[in-house]
């Protein structure tokens, strides 16, 4: 096949294909930005000296401390997770129609390689364009945001750039990765031209096994970790790698459990809605949830992960706030009055910002999934409208379908995140400092002769305090996630309006 023919066939799609290409490019751009940001933070040169040496050129303490930089880079890399989830959703947009088109090419005599080439070209070029845009935005942003403050310090690491090799790896690696994923997903179409004509649906209802994953994650956080911490003394201290394994493994297991559990939640909420719901809208939604429960996992996965992280961060914040308060109170006993230490809380603000960004990106994924669900069913919807089914019933069924599984799934994610966050933050110990205080004025205290008379030993009670449940913040996260779902449903309903014109009755 000549390159011109290949390009022509690649561009032979519909509006939906255009939308998919645009969204693929967009998510590639976002992923590039997140990756480049992380690499840039990692590219900050090590400051010579001891391990506490600060990178003085920055005003942002996240960048100054060598210990925090790694965490910052990791958080930025984590942001690529919802972006990749978004990319996955985008790849599904209009996929059945594209698969049919590709299968038609196969029937017309195209080899499997040629068909794969068409699809891979589409995704690869779109991702490459997106990555280049991301690179351009990164470089442009670097110029624009390079504003040193009065002390000549920078808010962002606009003075460093990852090595050319790293830049090239991101900008070229991403399209290659996307193209490889496309080729992998197309196996079914390319093996047989009829592969897509008859689709075998997984009829088996999801089982609540993902609950075990959640349980394992929580067990790691709530049982194993405190037990290891309790082992006092240097010889009993657990090896560092075990702690890291427990934390990372526990969070991963619980997150995976919540995401996969969304399938079971979808199915079960669908079954309950079928049994107890009233009216045709509830019936339609319930049956759709039961027919494809994994759609729930696919749709809400990234959102639920973001909510879980947000809830964990909220628990961390409340633990940090408590320990800060305890510290200040105890310092006051020694006559030292310091203001609230904003450092950790400011760090948490950044984490919250990251969570908010993740929720927003994940909401984009939800939107794409909702729209895809509507577009894929547009003929059936158009037929229903033609037979006199009120638009309100269809709108209602779509809203039910999104909200009925979303509410319990978000609640589960919040709970799991909160429990994990509390488990990893641990309880706050009081009375960790003790010492003597001189109660007299500075003169008396300065004199070694009189000082002894005014000395008092202060020994705060040793207690373990449990941080409060940050209800307000949890509610905020939950409401935010729910609002994101509502907004996507709203936009989805607009799509329903345009994609159920009576002309759709003529399409096959």
């Amino acid at each position, binding site marked *: 096949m000549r390159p011109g023919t290949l390009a022509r066939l690649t561009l032979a799609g519909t509006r939906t294909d255009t939308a998919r290409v645009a969204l693929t490019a967009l998510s590639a751009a976002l992923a590039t930005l997140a990756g480049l940001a992380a690499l840039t933070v990692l590219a900050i040169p090590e400051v010579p000296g001891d391990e506490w040496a600060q990178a003085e050129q920055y005003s942002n303490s996240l960048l100054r401390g060598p210990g925090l930089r790694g965490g910052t880079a990791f958080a930025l890399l984590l942001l690529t997770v919802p972006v990749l989830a978004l990319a996955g959703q985008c790849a599904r947009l209009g996929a059945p129609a594209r698969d049919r088109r590709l299968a038609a090419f196969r029937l017309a005599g195209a080899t499997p390689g040629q068909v794969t080439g068409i699809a891979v070209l589409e995704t690869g070029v779109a991702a490459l364009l997106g990555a280049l845009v991301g690179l351009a935005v990164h470089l442009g942003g670097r110029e624009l945001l390079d504003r040193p403050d009065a002390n000549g310090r920078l808010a962002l690491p606009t003075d460093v750039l990852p090595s050319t090799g790293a830049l090239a790896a991101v900008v070229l690696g991403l399209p290659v990765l996307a193209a490889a994923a496309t080729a992998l997903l197309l196996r079914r179409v390319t093996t047989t031209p009829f592969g897509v004509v008859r689709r075998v*649906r997984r009829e088996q209802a999801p089982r609540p096994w993902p609950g075990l994953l959640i349980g394992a994650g929580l067990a790691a956080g709530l049982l194993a970790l405190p037990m290891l911490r309790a082992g006092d003394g240097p010889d009993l201290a657990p090896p560092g790698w075990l702690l890291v394994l427990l934390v990372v493994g526990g969070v991963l297991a619980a997150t995976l459990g919540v995401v996969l559990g969304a399938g079971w939640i979808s199915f079960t909420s669908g079954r309950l809605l079928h049994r107890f719901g009233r*009216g*045709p809208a509830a*019936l*339609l939604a319930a*049956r*759709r949830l*039961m*027919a*494809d429960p994994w759609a729930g996992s696919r749709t809400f996965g990234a959102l639920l992960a973001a909510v879980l992280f947000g809830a964990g961060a909220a628990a961390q914040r409340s633990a940090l706030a408590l320990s800060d308060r305890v510290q200040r109170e105890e310092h006051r006993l020694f006559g030292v009055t310091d203001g609230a230490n904003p450092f950790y809380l400011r760090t948490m603000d950044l984490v919250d910002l990251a969570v908010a960004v993740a929720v927003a990106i994940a909401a984009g994924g939800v939107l794409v999934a909702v729209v895809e669900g509507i577009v894929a*069913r547009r*003929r*059936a919807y158009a*037929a*229903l*409208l*033609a*037979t*006199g*089914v*009120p*638009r309100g*019933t269809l709108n209602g069924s779509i809203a039910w379908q999104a909200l009925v599984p979303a509410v319990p799934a978000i609640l589960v994610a919040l709970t799991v995140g909160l429990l994990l966050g509390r488990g990893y933050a641990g309880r706050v110990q009081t009375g960790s400092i003790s010492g003597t205080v001189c109660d007299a004025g500075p003169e008396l205290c300065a004199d070694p002769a009189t000082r002894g008379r005014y000395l008092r030993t202060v020994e705060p009670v040793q207690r373990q305090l449990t941080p409060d449940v940050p209800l307000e913040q949890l509610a905020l996260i939950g409401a935010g996630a729910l609002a994101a779902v509502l907004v996507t449903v709203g936009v989805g309903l607009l799509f329903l309006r345009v994609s159920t014109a*009576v*002309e759709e*009755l*003529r399409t*096959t």
Partner: protein
Amino acid sequence: MTQLQARGVVKAYGPTPALRGITLDVAEGEIVAVSGPSGCGKSTLLHCLAGILRPDAGEVLWRGHRIDTWSEAARSRLRRTEFGVLFQFGQLVAELTAAENVALPLLLAGTGRREARTAALTWLERFGVAEVADVRPGQMSGGQQQRCATARALVTEPRVLFADEPTGALDTLAGEQVLTQLVRLAREQETAVVLVTHEPRIAAYADREVVLRDGMVDHTGLGLDAPLAGGRR
């Protein structure tokens, strides 16, 4: 007694005219076939008569009231209560079982779920597909799907049934069986039928055949694509 009327209906999709002034009456309980070659405007006429499309010019009257000026909500209600609509394929909700699909119009009308299911089962029985009541359309044959769709179109005992190539996707025997049963039941409950088809054999199920050509009623009844002698097209 005329109950549905089209008067000089004109409809175009962009610059392409689909209907160029159609006048047609459908009496109570009458079965009218609308036939003609592909692209003659059959389906568009059906959509206009059923209040799915609004004509660009002309009038559509239901029992003497102009429905083409009604709001979409009002026309939707009319379709739901007085009309039944049947397409060639793909109208069943893939996620609902056969019985639920058939019960859907009743549920929309406010019937209780149990009552609606009983009625749906009766109708599935009438079309000989009671055995697929709890099966989803994906697992049915084309003939079974179309029987379910026909049952759904008739379950509210509409006054007019609009059928657009209802047997177009079926083999001959399945098509004959669906149509025979449709016509029998329509006559039984005095439902008028507007039957769009391009096959003479299907049109023969009607009391009367209206042939369209190039968006107009063809009084020669030929519906030919080729120009006739004398240069008329």
